[in-house]
Protein backbone atom coordinates (compact mmCIF):
# COMPACT_ATOMS: atom_id res chain seq x y z
CA UNK A 1 0.00 0.00 0.00
CA UNK A 2 2.77 2.32 -0.96
CA UNK A 3 0.39 5.07 -1.97
CA UNK A 4 -2.10 4.85 0.86
CA UNK A 5 -2.31 7.54 3.50
CA UNK A 6 -0.36 7.04 6.71
CA UNK A 7 -2.42 4.89 9.02
CA UNK A 8 -3.45 6.26 12.35
CA UNK A 9 -4.60 2.87 13.56
CA UNK A 10 -3.30 0.59 16.25
CA UNK A 11 -0.73 -1.16 14.13
CA UNK A 12 0.96 0.08 11.02
CA UNK A 13 3.53 -1.95 9.12
CA UNK A 14 5.64 -0.15 6.52
CA UNK A 15 7.95 -1.72 3.95
CA UNK A 16 8.80 -4.65 6.17
CA UNK A 17 11.65 -6.79 4.84
CA UNK A 18 12.88 -9.93 6.57
CA UNK A 19 15.80 -11.96 5.29
CA UNK A 20 16.93 -15.26 6.73
CA UNK A 21 20.32 -16.83 6.31
CA UNK A 22 20.56 -20.38 5.13
CA UNK A 23 24.07 -21.50 4.42
CA UNK A 24 25.27 -18.59 2.30
CA UNK A 25 22.45 -17.08 0.28
CA UNK A 26 19.88 -14.87 1.95
CA UNK A 27 16.33 -16.20 2.00
CA UNK A 28 13.86 -13.44 1.15
CA UNK A 29 11.00 -14.37 3.44
CA UNK A 30 9.23 -10.99 3.54
CA UNK A 31 9.78 -8.43 0.77
CA UNK A 32 8.25 -5.07 1.57
CA UNK A 33 4.99 -5.68 3.37
CA UNK A 34 2.86 -2.68 4.37
CA UNK A 35 -0.52 -2.72 6.00
CA UNK A 36 -2.59 -0.93 8.61
CA UNK A 37 -4.87 -2.21 11.27
CA UNK A 38 -7.32 -0.01 13.14
CA UNK A 39 -8.33 -0.70 16.73
CA UNK A 40 -11.02 -3.31 17.00
CA UNK A 41 -10.68 -4.48 13.40
CA UNK A 42 -9.68 -7.86 12.04
CA UNK A 43 -7.25 -8.36 9.19
CA UNK A 44 -6.83 -11.67 7.42
CA UNK A 45 -3.41 -12.54 6.00
CA UNK A 46 -4.04 -15.18 3.37
CA UNK A 47 -1.44 -17.08 1.44
CA UNK A 48 0.21 -20.37 0.66
CA UNK A 49 2.63 -22.21 2.89
CA UNK A 50 5.96 -20.42 2.82
CA UNK A 51 4.53 -17.09 1.70
CA UNK A 52 5.95 -15.41 4.79
CA UNK A 53 2.79 -15.07 6.86
CA UNK A 54 4.21 -16.56 10.04
CA UNK A 55 7.40 -14.55 9.63
CA UNK A 56 5.29 -11.38 9.59
CA UNK A 57 3.58 -12.46 12.81
CA UNK A 58 6.85 -13.32 14.52
CA UNK A 59 8.38 -10.02 13.44
CA UNK A 60 5.54 -8.13 15.06
CA UNK A 61 6.04 -10.15 18.24
CA UNK A 62 9.80 -9.81 17.84
CA UNK A 63 10.38 -13.50 18.45
CA UNK A 64 12.28 -14.33 15.29
CA UNK A 65 15.23 -16.66 16.02
CA UNK A 66 18.29 -14.39 16.20
CA UNK A 67 20.72 -16.84 14.66
CA UNK A 68 18.61 -17.39 11.54
CA UNK A 69 17.70 -13.79 10.79
CA UNK A 70 19.96 -11.80 8.56
CA UNK A 71 18.12 -8.52 8.37
CA UNK A 72 14.87 -6.93 9.42
CA UNK A 73 14.11 -3.63 7.72
CA UNK A 74 11.14 -1.31 7.65
CA UNK A 75 8.80 -0.18 10.37
CA UNK A 76 6.30 -1.81 12.62
CA UNK A 77 4.46 0.91 14.55
CA UNK A 78 2.32 -0.13 17.43
CA UNK A 79 0.34 2.81 18.80
CA UNK A 80 2.72 5.16 16.99
CA UNK A 81 5.91 3.59 18.33
CA UNK A 82 8.26 1.65 16.07
CA UNK A 83 8.59 -1.61 17.97
CA UNK A 84 11.47 -2.80 15.80
CA UNK A 85 13.62 -0.05 17.34
CA UNK A 86 12.67 -0.09 21.02
CA UNK A 87 14.93 -1.99 23.43
CA UNK A 88 14.10 -5.55 24.38
CA UNK A 89 13.15 -4.43 27.90
CA UNK A 90 10.38 -2.19 26.56
CA UNK A 91 9.32 -4.86 24.10
CA UNK A 92 8.89 -7.29 26.97
CA UNK A 93 6.35 -4.96 28.51
CA UNK A 94 4.27 -5.16 25.35
CA UNK A 95 4.72 -8.81 24.57
CA UNK A 96 2.00 -10.92 26.11
CA UNK A 97 0.28 -7.86 27.56
CA UNK A 98 -0.57 -5.54 24.66
CA UNK A 99 0.24 -7.91 21.83
CA UNK A 100 -0.29 -11.60 22.17
CA UNK A 101 -0.41 -14.61 19.96
CA UNK A 102 -2.43 -17.78 19.39
CA UNK A 103 -0.39 -20.63 18.01
CA UNK A 104 -1.18 -22.98 15.21
CA UNK A 105 -0.88 -26.32 16.91
CA UNK A 106 -2.46 -26.51 20.36
CA UNK A 107 -0.97 -29.99 20.80
CA UNK A 108 2.54 -28.55 21.04
CA UNK A 109 1.89 -25.00 22.22
CA UNK A 110 1.18 -26.08 25.79
CA UNK A 111 3.79 -27.25 28.23
CA UNK A 112 3.01 -30.95 28.83
CA UNK A 113 4.19 -30.99 32.44
CA UNK A 114 2.27 -28.01 33.81
CA UNK A 115 -1.42 -27.84 34.62
CA UNK A 116 -3.51 -25.63 32.36
CA UNK A 117 -4.41 -23.24 35.16
CA UNK A 118 -0.71 -22.87 35.99
CA UNK A 119 0.06 -21.94 32.42
CA UNK A 120 -2.68 -19.32 32.27
CA UNK A 121 -1.77 -18.01 35.70
CA UNK A 122 1.86 -17.67 34.65
CA UNK A 123 0.99 -15.03 32.07
CA UNK A 124 -1.21 -13.18 34.57
CA UNK A 125 1.47 -13.32 37.24
CA UNK A 126 4.15 -12.03 34.88
CA UNK A 127 2.20 -9.00 33.73
CA UNK A 128 -0.17 -8.01 36.46
CA UNK A 129 1.94 -8.65 39.52
CA UNK A 130 -0.83 -10.35 41.46
CA UNK A 131 -0.24 -13.11 43.98
CA UNK A 132 -0.55 -16.79 43.14
CA UNK A 133 -4.01 -17.27 44.59
CA UNK A 134 -5.45 -14.31 42.71
CA UNK A 135 -3.71 -15.40 39.50
CA UNK A 136 -5.25 -18.85 39.87
CA UNK A 137 -8.69 -17.35 40.40
CA UNK A 138 -8.25 -15.27 37.29
CA UNK A 139 -7.08 -18.31 35.37
CA UNK A 140 -10.25 -20.14 36.36
CA UNK A 141 -12.36 -17.16 35.26
CA UNK A 142 -10.59 -17.21 31.90
CA UNK A 143 -11.16 -20.93 31.55
CA UNK A 144 -14.86 -20.40 32.18
CA UNK A 145 -14.85 -17.65 29.59
CA UNK A 146 -13.51 -20.04 26.97
CA UNK A 147 -15.97 -22.70 28.05
CA UNK A 148 -13.95 -24.99 30.29
CA UNK A 149 -15.33 -25.80 33.72
CA UNK A 150 -13.45 -25.10 36.90
CA UNK A 151 -12.96 -28.73 37.94
CA UNK A 152 -10.68 -29.30 34.96
CA UNK A 153 -8.40 -26.37 35.83
CA UNK A 154 -5.87 -28.58 37.60
CA UNK A 155 -5.54 -31.08 34.81
CA UNK A 156 -2.67 -31.45 32.39
CA UNK A 157 -2.79 -30.70 28.64
CA UNK A 158 -2.74 -34.38 27.67
CA UNK A 159 -6.06 -34.85 29.44
CA UNK A 160 -7.69 -32.35 27.08
CA UNK A 161 -8.94 -32.80 23.54
CA UNK A 162 -7.46 -30.75 20.69
CA UNK A 163 -10.29 -28.22 20.65
CA UNK A 164 -10.09 -27.74 24.42
CA UNK A 165 -6.35 -27.27 24.23
CA UNK A 166 -6.87 -24.53 21.67
CA UNK A 167 -9.35 -22.93 24.06
CA UNK A 168 -6.64 -22.99 26.73
CA UNK A 169 -4.16 -21.43 24.29
CA UNK A 170 -6.72 -18.71 23.58
CA UNK A 171 -7.27 -18.20 27.30
CA UNK A 172 -3.51 -17.67 27.74
CA UNK A 173 -3.46 -15.23 24.84
CA UNK A 174 -6.32 -13.11 26.19
CA UNK A 175 -5.20 -13.35 29.83
CA UNK A 176 -4.06 -9.73 29.92
CA UNK A 177 -6.73 -8.23 27.63
CA UNK A 178 -4.35 -7.55 24.75
CA UNK A 179 -5.08 -4.80 22.26
CA UNK A 180 -3.72 -6.84 19.40
CA UNK A 181 -4.13 -10.56 19.00
CA UNK A 182 -2.17 -12.41 16.34
CA UNK A 183 -3.72 -15.77 15.49
CA UNK A 184 -1.35 -17.93 13.47
CA UNK A 185 -3.54 -20.49 11.74
CA UNK A 186 -5.58 -21.04 14.89
CA UNK A 187 -7.86 -23.65 13.37
CA UNK A 188 -5.58 -25.54 11.01
CA UNK A 189 -4.90 -28.38 13.44
CA UNK A 190 -8.57 -28.80 14.38
CA UNK A 191 -11.43 -30.61 12.71
CA UNK A 192 -14.27 -28.67 11.15
CA UNK A 193 -16.81 -28.69 14.00
CA UNK A 194 -14.19 -27.63 16.49
CA UNK A 195 -12.95 -25.01 14.02
CA UNK A 196 -16.39 -23.44 14.00
CA UNK A 197 -16.48 -23.39 17.81
CA UNK A 198 -13.03 -21.85 18.09
CA UNK A 199 -13.84 -19.19 15.48
CA UNK A 200 -17.04 -18.37 17.32
CA UNK A 201 -15.04 -18.05 20.52
CA UNK A 202 -12.51 -15.71 18.90
CA UNK A 203 -15.32 -13.56 17.50
CA UNK A 204 -17.02 -13.43 20.87
CA UNK A 205 -13.81 -12.43 22.65
CA UNK A 206 -13.14 -9.73 20.10
CA UNK A 207 -16.60 -8.33 20.65
CA UNK A 208 -16.19 -8.35 24.43
CA UNK A 209 -12.66 -6.94 24.62
CA UNK A 210 -12.59 -4.89 21.41
CA UNK A 211 -9.34 -6.60 20.47
CA UNK A 212 -7.77 -6.10 17.06
CA UNK A 213 -6.93 -9.29 15.28
CA UNK A 214 -4.45 -10.40 12.67
CA UNK A 215 -5.63 -13.75 11.43
CA UNK A 216 -3.11 -15.78 9.50
CA UNK A 217 -4.60 -18.57 7.48
CA UNK A 218 -4.79 -20.26 4.13
CA UNK A 219 -8.47 -21.00 4.63
CA UNK A 220 -10.61 -18.43 2.83
CA UNK A 221 -13.70 -19.72 4.64
CA UNK A 222 -12.18 -18.77 7.98
CA UNK A 223 -11.36 -15.29 6.67
CA UNK A 224 -14.91 -14.79 5.44
CA UNK A 225 -16.13 -15.75 8.88
CA UNK A 226 -14.32 -13.17 11.01
CA UNK A 227 -12.25 -10.63 9.09
CA UNK A 228 -13.06 -7.04 8.13
CA UNK A 229 -10.25 -6.71 5.61
CA UNK A 230 -7.98 -9.11 3.76
CA UNK A 231 -4.42 -9.03 2.51
CA UNK A 232 -3.32 -11.76 0.11
CA UNK A 233 0.35 -12.61 0.59
CA UNK A 234 2.44 -14.19 -2.15
CA UNK A 235 6.20 -14.72 -2.02
CA UNK A 236 6.62 -12.27 0.85
CA UNK A 237 4.59 -9.49 -0.76
CA UNK A 238 1.01 -8.37 -0.44
CA UNK A 239 -0.42 -8.87 -3.92
CA UNK A 240 -3.91 -7.69 -3.14
CA UNK A 241 -5.54 -6.00 -0.21
CA UNK A 242 -8.93 -4.57 0.51
CA UNK A 243 -12.09 -5.03 2.48
CA UNK A 244 -13.64 -8.46 2.78
CA UNK A 245 -16.23 -7.55 0.13
CA UNK A 246 -13.58 -6.17 -2.25
CA UNK A 247 -11.54 -9.32 -2.17
CA UNK A 248 -14.35 -11.85 -2.10
CA UNK A 249 -16.65 -10.17 -4.62
CA UNK A 250 -14.11 -8.53 -6.90
CA UNK A 251 -10.83 -10.47 -6.74
CA UNK A 252 -8.53 -8.66 -9.13
CA UNK A 253 -5.07 -10.15 -8.91
CA UNK A 254 -4.68 -13.35 -10.94
CA UNK A 255 -3.36 -15.11 -7.83
CA UNK A 256 -6.40 -14.18 -5.78
CA UNK A 257 -8.64 -15.24 -8.63
CA UNK A 258 -6.73 -18.52 -8.74
CA UNK A 259 -7.25 -19.04 -5.01
CA UNK A 260 -10.99 -18.59 -5.36
CA UNK A 261 -11.10 -20.88 -8.36
CA UNK A 262 -9.56 -23.58 -6.21
CA UNK A 263 -12.31 -23.38 -3.60
CA UNK A 264 -15.25 -25.73 -4.11
CA UNK A 265 -18.53 -23.94 -4.77
CA UNK A 266 -21.47 -25.01 -2.66
CA UNK A 267 -24.00 -24.28 -5.36
CA UNK A 268 -22.33 -25.81 -8.36
CA UNK A 269 -21.60 -29.39 -9.21
CA UNK A 270 -17.96 -29.43 -10.24
CA UNK A 271 -16.00 -32.59 -10.95
CA UNK A 272 -12.56 -31.11 -10.63
CA UNK A 273 -11.33 -27.95 -8.98
CA UNK A 274 -8.89 -25.84 -10.91
CA UNK A 275 -5.60 -25.49 -9.04
CA UNK A 276 -2.98 -22.83 -9.66
CA UNK A 277 -0.29 -24.53 -11.73
CA UNK A 278 3.29 -24.53 -10.59
CA UNK A 279 4.91 -23.82 -7.25
CA UNK A 280 5.55 -20.58 -5.37
CA UNK A 281 8.98 -19.16 -6.19
CA UNK A 282 12.03 -20.23 -4.24
CA UNK A 283 12.51 -17.52 -1.59
CA UNK A 284 16.25 -17.66 -2.23
CA UNK A 285 15.70 -16.74 -5.86
CA UNK A 286 12.65 -14.59 -6.42
CA UNK A 287 12.08 -13.60 -10.08
CA UNK A 288 12.37 -9.98 -11.15
CA UNK A 289 9.23 -8.01 -11.71
CA UNK A 290 6.03 -9.74 -10.75
CA UNK A 291 6.81 -12.77 -8.60
CA UNK A 292 3.63 -14.50 -9.76
CA UNK A 293 4.56 -14.12 -13.44
CA UNK A 294 5.78 -17.74 -14.01
CA UNK A 295 2.41 -19.11 -12.90
CA UNK A 296 0.19 -16.40 -14.30
CA UNK A 297 -2.02 -17.04 -17.33
CA UNK A 298 -2.18 -13.31 -18.05
CA UNK A 299 1.59 -12.82 -18.02
CA UNK A 300 2.95 -10.53 -20.71
CA UNK A 301 6.35 -9.07 -21.53
CA UNK A 302 5.91 -6.01 -19.33
CA UNK A 303 5.40 -8.13 -16.19
CA UNK A 304 9.04 -9.09 -15.92
CA UNK A 305 10.45 -5.56 -15.73
CA UNK A 306 11.00 -3.68 -12.52
CA UNK A 307 9.07 -3.91 -9.29
CA UNK A 308 5.34 -3.89 -9.71
CA UNK A 309 3.68 -1.30 -7.51
CA UNK A 310 0.30 -1.42 -5.90
CA UNK A 311 -2.50 -0.06 -8.08
CA UNK A 312 -5.66 1.26 -6.57
CA UNK A 313 -8.61 -0.57 -8.07
CA UNK A 314 -11.22 1.08 -5.96
CA UNK A 315 -11.15 3.15 -2.81
CA UNK A 316 -9.23 1.00 -0.30
CA UNK A 317 -8.80 -1.92 -2.69
CA UNK A 318 -5.24 -2.35 -3.97
CA UNK A 319 -3.73 -4.83 -6.35
CA UNK A 320 -0.12 -5.49 -7.32
CA UNK A 321 -0.60 -6.27 -10.98
CA UNK A 322 0.13 -4.35 -14.22
CA UNK A 323 -3.17 -5.42 -15.63
CA UNK A 324 -5.24 -4.62 -12.58
CA UNK A 325 -7.73 -2.44 -14.48
CA UNK A 326 -8.50 -5.08 -17.06
CA UNK A 327 -8.71 -8.01 -14.68
CA UNK A 328 -11.16 -6.75 -12.06
CA UNK A 329 -14.32 -8.75 -12.24
CA UNK A 330 -17.10 -10.47 -10.43
CA UNK A 331 -16.22 -13.65 -8.64
CA UNK A 332 -18.33 -16.68 -9.18
CA UNK A 333 -17.37 -17.97 -5.78
CA UNK A 334 -19.91 -18.05 -3.01
CA UNK A 335 -18.60 -19.25 0.30
Amino acid at each position, binding site marked *: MDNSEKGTGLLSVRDLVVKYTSGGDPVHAVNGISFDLAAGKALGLVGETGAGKTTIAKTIMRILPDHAVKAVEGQVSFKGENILQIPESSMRKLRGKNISMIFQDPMTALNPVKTVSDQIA*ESIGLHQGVNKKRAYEKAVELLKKVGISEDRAKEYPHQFSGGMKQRVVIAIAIACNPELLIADEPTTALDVTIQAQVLELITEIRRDLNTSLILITHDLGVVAEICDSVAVVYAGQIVESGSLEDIFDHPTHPYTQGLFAAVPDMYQDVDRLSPIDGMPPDPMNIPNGCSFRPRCSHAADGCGEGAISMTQVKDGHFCRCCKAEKLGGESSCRL
Partner: protein
Amino acid sequence: MLKLRKVVMAMPKQQPERYDKSKKPGSLPYIWKRISRNPGAMIGFSLLCLIIILSFLSPYIMKYDYSAVNMSERGATPSWEHPFGTDELGRDILSRVLYGARYTLGIGVGAVIIAATFGMLIGAISGFFGGKLDTLLMRALDILQSFPGLVLAIAVATALGTGLVHSIIAIGIAFMPIFARLIRANMLSIRGSEFIEAAVVINCSTPRIIRRHMIPNAVSPLIVQISLLIAQAGLTASTLSFLGLGVQEPTPEWGSMIASARSFIRESPHMVFIPGLFIMITVLSLNLLGDAIRDALDPRLKD
Protein backbone atom coordinates in the same frame (compact mmCIF):
# COMPACT_ATOMS: atom_id res chain seq x y z
CA MET B 1 -45.43 -40.57 29.54
CA LEU B 2 -45.72 -38.93 32.89
CA LYS B 3 -44.44 -42.03 34.56
CA LEU B 4 -41.46 -42.13 32.29
CA ARG B 5 -40.60 -38.56 33.13
CA LYS B 6 -40.72 -39.36 36.80
CA VAL B 7 -38.33 -42.22 36.29
CA VAL B 8 -35.98 -39.98 34.42
CA MET B 9 -36.14 -37.35 37.12
CA ALA B 10 -35.59 -39.89 39.83
CA MET B 11 -32.38 -41.03 38.24
CA PRO B 12 -29.37 -39.75 40.10
CA LYS B 13 -27.47 -37.01 38.40
CA GLN B 14 -24.80 -38.58 36.32
CA GLN B 15 -21.48 -38.12 37.98
CA PRO B 16 -18.59 -37.26 35.72
CA GLU B 17 -16.58 -40.43 35.33
CA ARG B 18 -13.67 -40.34 37.72
CA TYR B 19 -10.31 -40.87 36.22
CA ASP B 20 -8.58 -44.03 37.35
CA LYS B 21 -5.18 -42.71 38.29
CA SER B 22 -3.41 -46.05 37.99
CA LYS B 23 -4.27 -46.14 34.27
CA LYS B 24 -2.56 -42.89 33.42
CA PRO B 25 0.96 -43.47 32.09
CA GLY B 26 3.53 -41.48 33.97
CA SER B 27 1.55 -41.15 37.18
CA LEU B 28 3.09 -42.57 40.33
CA PRO B 29 0.36 -45.19 40.92
CA TYR B 30 0.78 -46.36 37.35
CA ILE B 31 4.55 -46.65 37.65
CA TRP B 32 4.23 -48.48 40.93
CA LYS B 33 1.72 -50.88 39.43
CA ARG B 34 4.05 -51.73 36.59
CA ILE B 35 7.09 -52.13 38.83
CA SER B 36 5.16 -54.34 41.23
CA ARG B 37 4.35 -56.71 38.37
CA ASN B 38 8.03 -57.30 37.68
CA PRO B 39 9.25 -60.12 40.00
CA GLY B 40 12.93 -59.23 39.59
CA ALA B 41 12.26 -55.64 40.56
CA MET B 42 10.27 -56.70 43.60
CA ILE B 43 13.07 -59.00 44.77
CA GLY B 44 15.56 -56.18 44.29
CA PHE B 45 13.32 -53.71 46.04
CA SER B 46 12.71 -56.02 49.01
CA LEU B 47 16.39 -56.84 49.42
CA LEU B 48 17.30 -53.16 49.28
CA CYS B 49 14.69 -52.26 51.87
CA LEU B 50 15.88 -55.11 54.08
CA ILE B 51 19.51 -54.04 53.85
CA ILE B 52 18.67 -50.38 54.54
CA ILE B 53 16.42 -51.19 57.52
CA LEU B 54 18.90 -53.66 59.02
CA SER B 55 21.72 -51.18 58.54
CA PHE B 56 19.90 -48.56 60.58
CA LEU B 57 18.73 -51.02 63.21
CA SER B 58 22.06 -52.86 63.50
CA PRO B 59 23.54 -50.76 66.34
CA TYR B 60 20.47 -51.60 68.47
CA ILE B 61 19.83 -55.24 67.63
CA MET B 62 23.31 -56.63 67.14
CA LYS B 63 25.05 -58.48 69.95
CA TYR B 64 28.46 -57.13 68.99
CA ASP B 65 29.51 -53.60 68.19
CA TYR B 66 30.88 -53.26 64.67
CA SER B 67 34.15 -51.92 66.02
CA ALA B 68 34.55 -54.16 69.06
CA VAL B 69 37.91 -55.91 68.78
CA ASN B 70 38.28 -59.39 70.23
CA MET B 71 41.78 -60.67 69.59
CA SER B 72 40.98 -64.13 71.00
CA GLU B 73 38.52 -64.81 68.21
CA ARG B 74 40.50 -63.60 65.20
CA GLY B 75 39.43 -65.02 61.83
CA ALA B 76 36.74 -67.26 63.33
CA THR B 77 34.68 -69.17 60.79
CA PRO B 78 30.89 -68.73 60.73
CA SER B 79 29.17 -70.11 63.83
CA TRP B 80 26.01 -69.48 65.84
CA GLU B 81 27.89 -66.89 67.83
CA HIS B 82 29.19 -65.08 64.70
CA PRO B 83 26.95 -66.07 61.75
CA PHE B 84 29.40 -64.58 59.22
CA GLY B 85 32.50 -65.24 61.31
CA THR B 86 34.95 -62.60 62.47
CA ASP B 87 37.68 -60.64 60.75
CA GLU B 88 41.42 -60.38 61.31
CA LEU B 89 40.87 -58.36 64.50
CA GLY B 90 38.08 -60.57 65.78
CA ARG B 91 35.29 -58.08 64.92
CA ASP B 92 31.87 -59.55 64.11
CA ILE B 93 31.51 -59.47 60.30
CA LEU B 94 27.69 -59.53 60.39
CA SER B 95 27.60 -56.34 62.45
CA ARG B 96 30.21 -54.73 60.26
CA VAL B 97 28.59 -55.67 56.97
CA LEU B 98 25.16 -54.49 58.05
CA TYR B 99 26.46 -51.26 59.49
CA GLY B 100 28.62 -50.70 56.39
CA ALA B 101 25.62 -50.73 54.02
CA ARG B 102 25.01 -47.08 54.82
CA TYR B 103 28.41 -46.13 53.42
CA THR B 104 28.15 -47.90 50.10
CA LEU B 105 24.57 -46.76 49.54
CA GLY B 106 25.20 -43.33 51.02
CA ILE B 107 28.17 -42.65 48.76
CA GLY B 108 26.19 -43.98 45.80
CA VAL B 109 23.21 -41.71 46.47
CA GLY B 110 25.35 -38.71 47.44
CA ALA B 111 27.58 -38.98 44.39
CA VAL B 112 24.60 -39.30 42.08
CA ILE B 113 22.93 -36.27 43.67
CA ILE B 114 26.08 -34.22 43.07
CA ALA B 115 26.50 -35.57 39.54
CA ALA B 116 22.85 -34.98 38.67
CA THR B 117 22.72 -31.45 40.13
CA PHE B 118 25.86 -30.16 38.45
CA GLY B 119 25.34 -32.21 35.31
CA MET B 120 21.84 -30.80 34.99
CA LEU B 121 23.08 -27.25 35.43
CA ILE B 122 25.85 -27.57 32.87
CA GLY B 123 23.69 -29.53 30.43
CA ALA B 124 20.81 -27.08 30.71
CA ILE B 125 22.99 -24.04 30.11
CA SER B 126 24.84 -25.74 27.29
CA GLY B 127 21.71 -27.01 25.58
CA PHE B 128 19.75 -23.80 25.92
CA PHE B 129 22.32 -21.26 24.82
CA GLY B 130 24.15 -23.40 22.29
CA GLY B 131 26.84 -21.81 20.19
CA LYS B 132 30.31 -21.19 21.54
CA LEU B 133 29.37 -21.72 25.19
CA ASP B 134 27.95 -25.11 24.27
CA THR B 135 31.10 -26.08 22.37
CA LEU B 136 33.29 -24.97 25.25
CA LEU B 137 31.34 -26.84 27.92
CA MET B 138 30.92 -29.97 25.84
CA ARG B 139 34.60 -30.16 24.92
CA ALA B 140 35.47 -29.76 28.60
CA LEU B 141 33.15 -32.67 29.36
CA ASP B 142 34.70 -34.64 26.49
CA ILE B 143 38.04 -34.28 28.23
CA LEU B 144 36.52 -35.54 31.47
CA GLN B 145 34.85 -38.42 29.68
CA SER B 146 37.98 -39.44 27.81
CA PHE B 147 39.10 -40.97 31.12
CA PRO B 148 37.29 -44.10 32.22
CA GLY B 149 34.99 -43.20 35.16
CA LEU B 150 37.02 -45.16 37.67
CA VAL B 151 40.35 -43.68 36.60
CA LEU B 152 38.89 -40.19 36.87
CA ALA B 153 37.43 -40.97 40.29
CA ILE B 154 40.83 -42.28 41.40
CA ALA B 155 42.55 -39.15 40.12
CA VAL B 156 40.09 -36.84 41.89
CA ALA B 157 40.21 -38.90 45.08
CA THR B 158 44.00 -38.77 45.03
CA ALA B 159 43.94 -35.01 44.59
CA LEU B 160 41.32 -34.41 47.30
CA GLY B 161 42.55 -37.02 49.76
CA THR B 162 40.69 -39.87 51.37
CA GLY B 163 37.48 -39.82 53.34
CA LEU B 164 33.74 -40.15 52.94
CA VAL B 165 32.94 -36.67 51.62
CA HIS B 166 35.88 -36.70 49.25
CA SER B 167 34.78 -40.04 47.81
CA ILE B 168 31.32 -38.63 47.17
CA ILE B 169 32.77 -35.59 45.39
CA ALA B 170 35.22 -37.69 43.36
CA ILE B 171 32.56 -40.07 42.12
CA GLY B 172 30.12 -37.20 41.59
CA ILE B 173 32.60 -35.44 39.29
CA ALA B 174 33.31 -38.65 37.42
CA PHE B 175 29.62 -39.26 36.76
CA MET B 176 28.63 -35.67 36.00
CA PRO B 177 29.24 -35.74 32.21
CA ILE B 178 26.69 -38.54 31.79
CA PHE B 179 23.93 -36.36 33.21
CA ALA B 180 25.11 -33.23 31.46
CA ARG B 181 24.94 -34.92 28.07
CA LEU B 182 21.55 -36.41 28.74
CA ILE B 183 20.04 -33.08 29.76
CA ARG B 184 21.72 -31.21 26.95
CA ALA B 185 20.32 -33.56 24.33
CA ASN B 186 16.85 -33.15 25.77
CA MET B 187 17.16 -29.39 26.04
CA LEU B 188 18.14 -29.21 22.40
CA SER B 189 15.04 -31.06 21.32
CA ILE B 190 12.76 -29.09 23.66
CA ARG B 191 14.23 -25.71 22.70
CA GLY B 192 12.58 -25.86 19.29
CA SER B 193 9.14 -26.74 20.69
CA GLU B 194 6.25 -24.45 20.13
CA PHE B 195 5.45 -24.24 23.83
CA ILE B 196 8.83 -22.64 24.45
CA GLU B 197 7.98 -20.05 21.81
CA ALA B 198 4.63 -19.64 23.54
CA ALA B 199 6.45 -19.01 26.81
CA VAL B 200 8.50 -16.30 25.12
CA VAL B 201 5.31 -14.76 23.81
CA ILE B 202 3.80 -14.42 27.27
CA ASN B 203 7.08 -12.80 28.23
CA CYS B 204 8.87 -15.33 30.41
CA SER B 205 12.49 -14.44 31.14
CA THR B 206 15.20 -16.79 29.95
CA PRO B 207 16.05 -18.23 33.39
CA ARG B 208 12.36 -18.76 33.98
CA ILE B 209 11.95 -20.60 30.68
CA ILE B 210 14.89 -22.85 31.51
CA ARG B 211 13.73 -23.49 35.05
CA ARG B 212 9.99 -23.72 34.68
CA HIS B 213 9.43 -24.91 31.15
CA MET B 214 12.46 -26.79 29.91
CA ILE B 215 14.01 -28.64 32.84
CA PRO B 216 10.72 -30.23 34.01
CA ASN B 217 10.33 -31.61 30.51
CA ALA B 218 13.90 -32.81 30.28
CA VAL B 219 14.26 -34.71 33.55
CA SER B 220 12.30 -37.91 32.98
CA PRO B 221 15.15 -39.87 31.37
CA LEU B 222 17.28 -38.59 34.23
CA ILE B 223 15.18 -40.51 36.75
CA VAL B 224 16.04 -43.78 35.03
CA GLN B 225 19.69 -42.86 34.80
CA ILE B 226 19.75 -41.96 38.49
CA SER B 227 18.43 -45.34 39.58
CA LEU B 228 20.93 -47.17 37.41
CA LEU B 229 23.91 -45.01 38.33
CA ILE B 230 23.42 -45.31 42.10
CA ALA B 231 24.46 -48.95 41.72
CA GLN B 232 27.52 -47.99 39.68
CA ALA B 233 28.47 -45.24 42.09
CA GLY B 234 28.18 -47.64 45.04
CA LEU B 235 30.41 -50.09 43.23
CA THR B 236 32.93 -47.37 42.41
CA ALA B 237 32.86 -46.30 46.08
CA SER B 238 33.78 -49.83 47.14
CA THR B 239 36.50 -49.95 44.52
CA LEU B 240 37.99 -46.68 45.77
CA SER B 241 38.02 -47.94 49.37
CA PHE B 242 39.50 -51.22 48.21
CA LEU B 243 42.32 -49.26 46.62
CA GLY B 244 42.75 -47.32 49.85
CA LEU B 245 41.51 -44.05 48.35
CA GLY B 246 38.03 -44.01 49.77
CA VAL B 247 36.64 -44.46 53.24
CA GLN B 248 39.35 -45.62 55.61
CA GLU B 249 39.57 -48.29 58.27
CA PRO B 250 38.10 -48.86 60.81
CA THR B 251 34.94 -47.68 59.06
CA PRO B 252 33.27 -50.88 57.87
CA GLU B 253 32.89 -49.83 54.25
CA TRP B 254 32.56 -53.02 52.18
CA GLY B 255 35.38 -52.23 49.79
CA SER B 256 37.78 -51.44 52.60
CA MET B 257 36.69 -54.59 54.45
CA ILE B 258 37.68 -56.65 51.41
CA ALA B 259 40.92 -54.72 51.07
CA SER B 260 42.03 -55.38 54.65
CA ALA B 261 40.95 -59.03 54.47
CA ARG B 262 42.55 -59.88 51.17
CA SER B 263 45.85 -60.94 52.71
CA PHE B 264 43.95 -63.64 54.64
CA ILE B 265 42.07 -64.96 51.63
CA ARG B 266 43.69 -68.40 51.85
CA GLU B 267 43.06 -69.04 55.55
CA SER B 268 39.70 -67.27 55.96
CA PRO B 269 38.00 -66.74 52.58
CA HIS B 270 34.71 -65.77 54.30
CA MET B 271 36.28 -62.46 55.36
CA VAL B 272 36.49 -61.46 51.69
CA PHE B 273 33.47 -63.37 50.49
CA ILE B 274 30.81 -61.86 52.80
CA PRO B 275 31.36 -58.13 52.00
CA GLY B 276 31.76 -59.06 48.33
CA LEU B 277 28.44 -60.89 48.41
CA PHE B 278 26.75 -57.83 49.92
CA ILE B 279 28.21 -55.56 47.26
CA MET B 280 26.88 -57.93 44.63
CA ILE B 281 23.40 -58.18 46.17
CA THR B 282 23.10 -54.40 46.52
CA VAL B 283 24.29 -53.60 43.01
CA LEU B 284 22.12 -56.32 41.53
CA SER B 285 19.06 -55.11 43.44
CA LEU B 286 19.60 -51.52 42.32
CA ASN B 287 20.04 -52.62 38.73
CA LEU B 288 16.90 -54.77 38.77
CA LEU B 289 14.94 -51.88 40.21
CA GLY B 290 16.45 -49.39 37.78
CA ASP B 291 15.57 -51.56 34.79
CA ALA B 292 12.01 -51.91 36.04
CA ILE B 293 11.71 -48.13 36.52
CA ARG B 294 12.96 -47.58 33.01
CA ASP B 295 10.40 -49.99 31.60
CA ALA B 296 7.63 -48.44 33.69
CA LEU B 297 8.45 -44.94 32.49
CA ASP B 298 8.68 -45.90 28.85
CA PRO B 299 5.24 -45.28 27.37
CA ARG B 300 6.05 -47.32 24.29
CA LEU B 301 6.34 -50.54 26.27
CA LYS B 302 2.71 -51.45 26.84
CA ASP B 303 1.80 -54.44 29.00
